[in-house]
């Protein structure tokens, strides 16, 4: 399922059980459970999905199917500073693609990847609803508006 192999510690397992219990181990709540689990672990590795499937008494395939269907869920850990470039239409026509290219060039990674030092990860998302500020870039929870390709180096410097 995933190239990342991790060993779940007992406390991780307890956490997963606690989250599932808080939703009464109800398979209908799978998406909510995955949201909470990802909030805790930062991502959803295969081992975590197996533990959830066991606890809810559903197949791992069902959990994996849901995880891979929705773009919000990720099976690889994000960087310490996750960078998201809005690729909504408004940002696109105002030059978001050039900004994205600049980030790819500066960080030497592609969309969906994390830098080897684990510091930055790059993703594109669809419309954060701040079209007045297009093109928009998010680093963690901080929003940068009207970003030009030249601003990319300046933004990255803030996190050095």
């Amino acid at each position, binding site marked *: 399922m995933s190239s990342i192999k991790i060993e779940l510690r007992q406390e991780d397992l307890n956490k997963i059980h606690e989250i599932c219990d808080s939703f009464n181990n109800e398979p209908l709540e799978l998406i909510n459970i995955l949201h909470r689990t990802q909030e805790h672990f930062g991502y959803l590795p295969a081992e975590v999905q197996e533990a959830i499937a066991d606890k809810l008494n559903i197949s791992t395939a069902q959990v994996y199917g849901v995880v891979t269907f929705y773009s919000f869920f990720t099976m690889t850990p994000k960087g310490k500073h996750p960078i998201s470039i809005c690729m909504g239409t*408004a940002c696109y026509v105002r030059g978001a693609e050039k900004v994205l290219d600049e980030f790819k060039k500066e960080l030497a990674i592609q969309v969906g990847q994390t830098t080897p030092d684990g510091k930055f990860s790059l993703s594109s998302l669809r419309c954060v609803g701040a079209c007045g500020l297009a093109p928009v870039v998010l680093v963690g929870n901080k929003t940068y508006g009207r970003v030009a390709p030249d601003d990319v180096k300046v933004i990255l410097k803030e996190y050095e």
Partner: protein
Amino acid sequence: MHLLVCGGTGCRASESSLILESLKRELEEKGLGNEVQVIMTGCFGFCEKGPVVKVMPDNTFYVQVKPEDAAVIVAEHVIKGRPVQRLLYVDPKSKEHVPDSKHMGFYRKQIRIALRNCGFINPENIDEYIAREGYSALGKCISEFTAADVIDIIKKSGLRGRGGAGFPTGLKWEIASKNKADQKYVVCNADEGDPGAFMDRSVLEGDPHSILEAMAICGYAISASKGLIYIRAEYPLAIQRLKIAIAQAREYGLLGKNIFGSDFSFDIDLRYGAGAFVCGEETALIHSMEGMRGEPTNKPPFPAESGFLGKPSNVNNVETFASVPVIITKGWEWFSAIGTEKSKGTKVFALAGKINNVGLIEVPMGTTLREIIFEIGGGIKNGKKFKAVQTGGPSGGCLTEKHLDTPIDFDNLVAAGSMMGSGGMIVMDEDDCMVSIAKFFLEFTVEESCGKCAPCRIGNKRLHELLTSITKGNGTMADLDRLKNMSNVIKDTALCGLGQTSPNPVLSTLNNFMDEYVAHVTEKRCPAGSCRELMKYSIIVDKCVGCTACARGCPVNAISGERKGPHFIDQEKCIKCGACFEKCKFGAVLIN
């Protein structure tokens, strides 16, 4: 007097919460903390010039306010009654400061029904909603009307679904009410996935109670006791405000058991999306709410017969619900007097792209594109020429100059080859390549296709490949026919609304901008100058001074020439990165 600070997403991203704090602190220091209220409201709509601060009751409208401006606003405006001129909006034509929002071109043509409370009330305070007739519609329904009366009012109002398809809301409610079951559900579709549309988010953030009230009214009308709001996880602020609103409404007895002392009970829960555009389709949305992959299924059965957990469910979009309470309080006659013959009321549009006034607007149905783009929107940015406006998002199409005077409503947009969609309106200028725009939308559809049916999964992928090859200069005239044929097949055979509408951007650009496609194919030229692979860089010999900056900047050593002599670009080696253009200080590099 009170001060309203915009707490919409755009303004908050520009640190409007710091403005709120600074204003409060300044007022405290001047001993006015108890007399002047500072309120964080929902979106004002005028995102272009945010953050926005409005002074009531005189409607003074301050734009691009910074936290450090708080001192002067308090010292000058609040204490001395003199508006701060430099923070007022400047009319781009007359160059004069506009004293209040009522005189701004942006607001003059707008009628705010769905957005009536956005930018007026504190969305986290139920009392402010109640003070503006909030929950009186629900009270009126329960005490004066039967369920059938309510459905009748909504039917007569002519309200149609604002999520895209424009299905008559009253009829939808009637069908759901006729299906008997022990449990029915009212579902609010807040999975606003259309990139470039943010009206649902603004309503939820600026006026969450209006949605709760409308859902309860719907519950009363179709005899459902349970409501569910399916909301995108990407909207944390809207989620937070909905949670607050639900808790307050429960505390006031406006949600829960025996509302207003009647035997009607209704409560609402939230369900979260996880980033899938197709979940805006109602059958996919229901599967997602059941914790499964958000794949659509064939209709019938419609959700009104068999929806959430197999029970009759009525699904309406946020903006549709937002219009319901006012229709009850002001009457269907009032609502149906606004708009065109078949599309009543108003529509919220998210105006974005190459336009001067980016923002959220609400206009009567029947307003023309010209009024929206050139009067409300203030025209095209940087004085460029208008080229097209894309409506309906990835499912819609491009409208051009010749459509500017068409009155906008559900049916006229479809007739013009586009659709209403959720109300995204992206304006494009002469620099935008329409083939690239079609490619952009197809890229979106390919990514968001759930993969269940072959026409959408495979067909859209092929469309995208063809478009990519055309933008790289590898297309043929036969490809253009292929594009058209394949688009029509996908339209006719795809399973759900996503697939059936996904070729629209291709078809509408083929119809309106055939010459651009032909230029890409036959001349290997992008008329808008935006397709990188079709650009040709050359050096103007007369302007080149031989400084060698371009040659040193070229990553593939494609530029040759002696120092102080003219340089040349080897077209075979050139990768069209544009580095030489950026490096040349003498304007000697030419792009074709």
